[in-house]
């Protein structure tokens, strides 16, 4: 390619060229659309001529000089591209509107880590109607390098369509390859690896190419190749205008790597020496030496230093071919290496050889089409399992340039290589993968945006498979916890069945003074002897009130301190229902001579045996005797006047005796008890009426002694 100044053409010439390039109608339509667009919006290309810069001839001269120098360096290629870029950028400061200059700058940037800057220059070049279709190919590359794969594919397609049939035949494979890479990249980016990728930093990397890390088996020493200058007069390889390769090393101290040092010993020389591999025991370093076409050598670590490079066995070398990378199995009996020797699939391939029974290497064989492609394979790393081989390739499903792949030897064959994935791989060249002993860390070389210049060494930290987050989905699994079901917890209401009632009310009074008394009133069911209620009369008024179901026979016993108890039989008939019965109760003080009627002592007619319903009253009498141990009483029996006097007297006496026997039977001293039958001699009511006769049939007691 010629220089920018000599290449400029006028706009019409470019259009004609374009029209000639398009062979299909669709392409023509596209072009016409493109032209009408550029005609209206594009800026004008400015040549480095006086016509455009009539007032600054000095500046113009300087700019033209910068362009010429840039062109010269650009033609050299390799390491000179960066230097060319410098001149071009200076020229562009003077004239930013030159189409070819913009394209050159864009192209230069494609060879640097700042590929991101290339896009604007190439787009600008197109805007300025750069007179070459190649700009579309370059822009495609720029988009690819910048992960703008769809746009890249568009540019590559456009470029392909614009080629003459002859050009198309020549370039189709390369363009198709680019498009395929973009499609691979789109797939790989969709499933990124969980890794951290860190530049090893300025202590290891330099502004020049640093690459091919080789790790000691213990993981603590990293050997690598650098093209940084050495000494006062560093030598440059005229083939690529970069300094010669030398081997450096860095050591791991804690989590840090020491500043890189030139490897001591007898390995580095004035020509290329590059790291290629290391033996599993770490005692042999394999080195690529660039003179005489490039071959692999080995150096042994002895007495604390690396020894002189020695040729590998003849079987592993080949005259006139280049071997660049080599790895051995852990037993040392098999080797894999990269060579461009004949018999491969194209470019550099991976070959293998094994030792025979005599310890000699057999004729190497190509690893086969499963692994090797028509493109270059490079930079081997064999895992400690001896069957997992990592390598870089420009073929397979690379996303651009060299990608790192992994293949496994299984069942007598190498499996289809697997792209290690994004972001380990990128559209740029990714090479020299080497795994650390912990399997979580690896190193490789690449040229990325965050580098220090040229290719740099990066550390990969594998994070393993995606660790699923806990997704805090909130459920209400149990509905009742949020919305309790409607359950009627209450027992249902009851139907109330009413009973006819009688009110019994009255006052408890001192029999003598009629003062109200607070007395204990007990109410018994005479039939069942059950105590129905025990309550007090009101202290202030002596009043009481009882609501009783009618149609029953009750006994009321009333007691107050220092008073004789009072008992009463209450037969509430059905006719008493719903009415009030007033019944005042008069209590007598406990004094000699006082007597009271025991109203609730019952006998069958003509009999002296106590009926069971008498026991409640007898109990009260017993209690009186028990609580007043000095008390002596006389129990007297009385009858009505029905029957003979004798009979009634005997009956009354027997009944009085029954009461006394009851008390004695409960433990009351007989000495305190006397009894007497009075027959009908002491009536308290008229015997003429039934009521009166009932009142006369009674049992009394009288206090004899207190």
């Amino acid at each position, binding site marked *: 390619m010629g220089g920018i100044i000599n290449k400029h053409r006028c706009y019409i010439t470019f259009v004609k060229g374009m029209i000639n390039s398009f062979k299909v109608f669709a392409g023509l339509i596209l072009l016409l659309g493109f032209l009408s667009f550029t005609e209206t919006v594009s800026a004008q290309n400015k040549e480095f001529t006086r016509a455009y810069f009539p007032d600054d001839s000095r500046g113009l001269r300087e700019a033209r000089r910068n362009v010429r120098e840039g062109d010269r360096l650009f033609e050299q290629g390799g390491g000179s591209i960066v230097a060319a870029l410098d001149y071009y950028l200076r020229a562009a400061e003077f004239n930013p509107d030159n189409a070819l200059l913009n394209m050159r700058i864009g192209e230069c940037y494609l060879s640097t880590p700042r590929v991101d800057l290339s896009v604007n220059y190439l787009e600008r070049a197109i805007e300025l109607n750069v007179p070459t279709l190649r700009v579309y190919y370059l822009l495609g590359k720029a988009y690819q390098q910048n992960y703008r794969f769809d746009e890249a594919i568009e540019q590559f397609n456009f470029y392909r369509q614009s080629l003459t049939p002859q050009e198309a035949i020549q370039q189709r494979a390369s363009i198709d390859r680019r498009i395929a890479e973009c499609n691979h990249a789109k797939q790989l980016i969709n499933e990124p690896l969980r890794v951290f990728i860190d530049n090893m930093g300025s202590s290891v990397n330099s502004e020049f190419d640093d690459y091919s890390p080789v790790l000691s088996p213990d993981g603590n020493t990293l050997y690598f190749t650098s093209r940084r200058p050495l000494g006062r007069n560093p030598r440059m390889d005229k083939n690529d205008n970069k300094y010669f390769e030398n081997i450096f090393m860095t050591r791991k101290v804690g989590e840090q790597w020491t500043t890189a040092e030139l490897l001591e010993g007898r390995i580095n020389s004035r020509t290329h020496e590059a790291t290629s591999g290391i033996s599993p025991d770490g005692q042999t370093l394999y080195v690529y030496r660039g003179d005489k076409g490039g071959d692999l050598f080995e150096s042994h670590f002895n007495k604390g230093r690396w020894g002189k490079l020695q040729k590998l066995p003849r079987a592993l070398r080949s005259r006139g071919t280049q071997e660049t990378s080599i790895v051995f199995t852990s037993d040392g009996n098999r080797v894999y290496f990269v060579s461009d020797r004949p018999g491969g699939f194209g470019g550099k391939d991976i070959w293998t050889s094994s030792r025979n029974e005599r310890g000699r290497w057999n004729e190497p064989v190509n690893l086969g089409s499963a692994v090797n492609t028509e493109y270059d394979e490079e930079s081997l790393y064999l895992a400690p399992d001896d069957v997992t081989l990592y390598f870089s390739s420009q073929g397979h499903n690379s996303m651009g340039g060299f990608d790192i792949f992994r293949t496994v030897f299984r069942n007598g064959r190498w499996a289809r290589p697997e792209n290690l994935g994004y972001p380990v791989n990128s559209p740029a060249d990714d090479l020299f993968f080497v795994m650390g002993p912990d399997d979580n860390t690896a190193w490789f070389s690449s040229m990325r945006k965050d580098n220090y210049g040229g290719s740099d060494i990066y550390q990969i930290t594998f994070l393993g498979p995606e660790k699923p987050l806990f997704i*805090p989905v909130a459920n209400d699994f149990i509905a009742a916890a949020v919305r309790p079901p409607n359950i009627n917890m209450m027992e249902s209401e009851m139907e109330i069945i009413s009973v006819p009632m009688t009110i019994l009310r009255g006052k408890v009074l001192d029999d003598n003074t009629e003062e109200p008394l607070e007395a204990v009133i007990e109410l018994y069911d005479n039939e069942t002897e059950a105590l129905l209620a025990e309550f007090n009369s009101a202290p202030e008024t002596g009043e009481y009130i009882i609501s009783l179901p009618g149609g029953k026979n009750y006994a009321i016993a009333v007691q107050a301190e220092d008073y004789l108890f009072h008992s009463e039989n209450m037969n509430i008939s059905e006719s008493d229902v719903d009415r009030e019965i007033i019944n005042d109760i008069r209590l007598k003080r406990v004094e000699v001579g006082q007597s009271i009627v025991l109203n609730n002592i019952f006998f069958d007619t003509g009999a002296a045996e106590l009926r069971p319903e008498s026991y409640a009253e007898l109990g009260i009498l017993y209690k009186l005797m028990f609580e007043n141990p000095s008390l002596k009483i006389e129990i007297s029996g009385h009858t009505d006047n029905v029957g003979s006097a004798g009979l009634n007297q005997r009956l009354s006496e027997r009944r009085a005796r029954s009461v006394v026997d009851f008390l004695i039977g409960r433990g009351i001293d007989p000495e305190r008890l006397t009894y007497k039958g009075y027959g009908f001699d002491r009536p308290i009511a008229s015997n003429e009426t039934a009521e009166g006769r009932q009142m006369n049939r009674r049992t009394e007691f009288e206090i004899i002694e207190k």
Partner: protein
Amino acid sequence: MMKHFFLSFMMVCLFTGTLLSQVADTVRIGRQNLMQAEKAYNDGISLFNESKLTESMQMFNEAISLRPDFFQAYYNRGVVKAETGDVNGALEDFRIAIDANPEFAMAYFARGKVLMGQGDKQAAISDFTQTLACNERLYFAHYYRGTLYMKKNDFDKAIEDFTAAINIRADFAHAYNDRGSARKQKGELQAAISDYQQAVLLDPGMALAYNNLGSIRLELEQYNQAHDLFTTAINLSQGYKKALNNRAIANMKLGRYDMALEDINSVLDENPENYIALTTRGMIKYRIKDYEGAAKDYTLAIRLNPDYAPAYLNRGIVREMLRDPGGAQLDWEKAANLGIVRASEYLE
């Protein structure tokens, strides 16, 4: 009969009313106490139904004082006590009711519910079982026992009970929802979907069933459907936090991170101490690679609930991305200790 009762009652009231201030209380004998007790009891029920719990309790107290063996009154008073939070009082009343009538199904049920509320699952299950022994048609005893089996992760028994409840009462949406949940827990997602769908068919206002159904759609990666179901739940129950939380997740899964953040922020605006929502927001921030923000949310969630294992697990993942492997390690250890099995795998 009624006239008779009325007269008697009026008499008692009259005398009681006029004399009460001068004399002792009227002593009532025999059936009239029962009548009074029953009336108080009935009044207690009416007052309870009017949500007048204090007054209702007084009525049941009176019923019991008038008739100390009135076990139904004890039971009802227990229900009121349970409602007012007097758990021990309720339990004692239910015990008395059960002692008086060992066949009293509702008393077992009510006691079971109180015990369930106290977290005594086994005792509650025992009471619900006893309830059903007394009356096998009490579908809600099946239902509540099923919920307890759910809590004990005995999903087969839970399903059995929910099914029994449904067999007795086919329109019981709660049982369908919960059976769906049990089936979901067993991984029977299609059967769970069917149950949740039946629940919303029977009770179209059951927002929680829509939410649960949405969760399954989320699990099945049917994010659009999940999103719509959560939206329905939110519309049915305004401010339904769980559904908002879940819709945030659905939006996140759909890549609509702004909407996801909007949903979850609306939950957090109302309650900034909702540690589950904070965990969800942490997850969304993680997805948009705002690792610092995610870590902050998880840390706050942990501060609010130091035993919330998911926040530790997720913060560990974020810390790994923040190049803090030591911190991640500690978080996963904590999550593992709190019972998240996969945290141990992360440690490996």
